[in-house]
């Protein structure tokens, strides 16, 4: 169980990005963070694994206070939390295999990893590439890949961490709608078959309905909705997206 308690983030320039955000995520849930651009979704997800330092509040995961962890302890926590980025964040000039292997850095001997990875880790990387269906791309450079392929590499990299929690920051926002489903299905699969808790920020309500088991709606850094996807009525939708919003359908 992940507990977010009174989380507040104020950036150095004074921007209030998160304002007293609290919610709970039971294990095995597929939680969707819904909100307009600028609502604070990225900030929230990055606070959970401390890529961004929260200003106030606590994040407790299975009894461990993530916000209090530092140094070695924080690294140990991070390696169980996968993160998938909207812009994929691959190392463009490195091979797909190297990119996937880098997901294992938290586990291997740091000094050895500078030279090369052990053979068993290479095998693990190949298994994870197989899982996302792109074993043949392993030797290619990341910048030779299409967007959909890159995001699969991103997933394979996160899988190397053997995560118990997967954070995904708009994982399909940079992709064609058609590709969106194929990527989200992988997340769904991880959630259902491997029991990985998923927290995923999304833009489109139809995707939320299709994949989410629970929803947190954010607006201007505040939680404006909390509940099941089917509870998002048109009225609720307008609260999250503003009065002028129209519902768009993605198939």
């Amino acid at each position, binding site marked *: 169980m992940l507990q977010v308690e009174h989380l507040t983030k104020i950036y150095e320039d004074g921007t209030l990005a998160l304002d007293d955000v609290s919610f709970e995520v039971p294990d095995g849930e597929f939680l969707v963070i819904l909100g307009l651009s600028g609502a604070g979704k990225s900030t929230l997800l990055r606070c959970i694994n401390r*890529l961004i330092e929260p200003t106030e509040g606590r994040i407790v995961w299975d009894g461990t206070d993530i916000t209090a962890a530092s140094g070695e302890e924080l690294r140990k926590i*991070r390696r169980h939390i996968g993160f998938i980025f909207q812009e994929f964040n*691959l190392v463009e000039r490195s091979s797909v295999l190297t990119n996937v292997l*880098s997901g294992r850095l938290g586990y291997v001997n*740091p000094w050895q990893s500078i030279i090369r990875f052990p053979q068993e880790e290479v095998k693990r990387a190949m298994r994870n590439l197989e899982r996302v269906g792109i074993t043949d791309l392993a030797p290619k450079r990341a910048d030779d890949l299409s967007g959909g392929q890159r995001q699969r590499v991103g997933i394979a990299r996160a899988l190397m961490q053997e995560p118990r929690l997967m954070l995904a920051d708009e994982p399909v926002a940079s992709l064609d709608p058609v590709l969106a489903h194929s990527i989200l299905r992988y997340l769904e699969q991880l959630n259902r078959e491997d029991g990985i808790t998923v927290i995923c920020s999304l833009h489109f309500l139809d995707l939320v309905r299709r994949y989410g088991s629970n929803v947190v709606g954010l607006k201007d850094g505040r939680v404006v909705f909390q509940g099941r996807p089917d509870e998002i009525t048109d009225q609720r939708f307008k609260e999250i997206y503003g009065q002028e919003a129209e519902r768009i359908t993605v198939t």
Partner: protein
Amino acid sequence: MEGKKSPLLSAFLSLIPGLGQIYAGAPLQGAALLLAIVVTALLIQWQGSTFLYVGIILAWLWGVGDAYSLAQGRQISLVPPFLIIGVIVYIIGWQVTDIKLMRLITDVADIKPLVSNLLQPAVLERDIETQKAEVIFESPCSDSPPEKGTPLEDEPYLIILDKTCGEVGETFTIEGGNFWPSSRGQIWWLNMAGEMKRRIRQEGEYLTFQTDEKGRIPPLTIVAPEAFGEARGKGPQRSRVQALLKREVGTIHPSHTFFLVAEKMMETIFLALMATTVAIVFAIPVSFLAARNLMGGTPITMGFYYLTRTILNILRSIEPLIMAIVFVVWVGLGPFAGVLALAVHSVAALGKLYSEAVESIDPGPIEAITATGANRLQTIVYAVIPQIVPPYVAFTVYRWDINVRMSTIIGFVGGGGIGYLLQQWIRLLMYREAGAAVWAIAIVVWALDYASAIVREKIV
């Protein structure tokens, strides 16, 4: 115009150029006109071409008229006086830099030997075989003048036909035999020890002879030259008269110059290599200090950032040639001075380029690798280095390429390498040798340019 300015007063004030304009409400234009006229007048004074004052007077009169009408509220253009001043300045510039375009045409013959020598670089040669024979001449005469010499059977010989001694300027006649037939030769004048010598000139021309088909030197009249340096005027001195024939034999092979040029070219390339590698070692840490995205954390690190940037900018603004002069004075002539000069300049240049590469890295991968639980070192190895190595390599190869070019120039002020050699040959008017050096530089620079372009293309 918020009027009530007197046009007459304005024109009167304009007797001092620009003052009228200042009074009439165009202070900037007035000041500019005043400054321009004063400075130009000083320039004319310095250059001494008094006729140019005509232009100044025209500009000044125009200024008076302009001030008059400006006070009435409508300005005539100030463009003409500034145009006149511009023309005057240009004429002075023409004189100062001694431009004589006609020379390009009238003196074109002067460049011909240079060009033709440069086009026949002294890279290949054949061995030279010589034949020589000598007799002795004394000046002035002593009681026992030297022998006239005797004709020999098989070897080349030289004899004096008439007198073996005499005053400077008196003539004597030589003759010889057993030389190569039908060849042209030279006459040399040597002191007895043989360490001083020069070719004999008569009426401005080098004295030469032509052997006949039997290898004889026909009688040749020589005006007795002065003895060498110290011996002059200290009583009777003996000198050697030498007939010298040269011919090329054997196969064509690379010349001594060729090897010298090759050696110095290698020195140049290594000079650039050492300077570049030394510079890399310093530029890498410096580049991190000069990267805004790495140093942005605290005011202290920002302080380091600005300090590093400032030092780099100052160092970069000093020409490597000036640095070479400084280091030549410091560590003496030779390639080491060149290495130091280029290294210092390269640290500044590379430091800036590297730091820009660091500043332009994508923070995304760093974030992603950090999120996997990697430590700082691993993050640098997996997320930062892959991003900066290609630009670093490209900039470095490019720098080496520039350094090879620069080191040829730096040689001119004594910084070692091929430039030093080239500069000496040019001074000694040895243009064929200089040509070899010029060709070597051109070839190496072209090759490196090409190679570095390929490397950069492959990497970036």
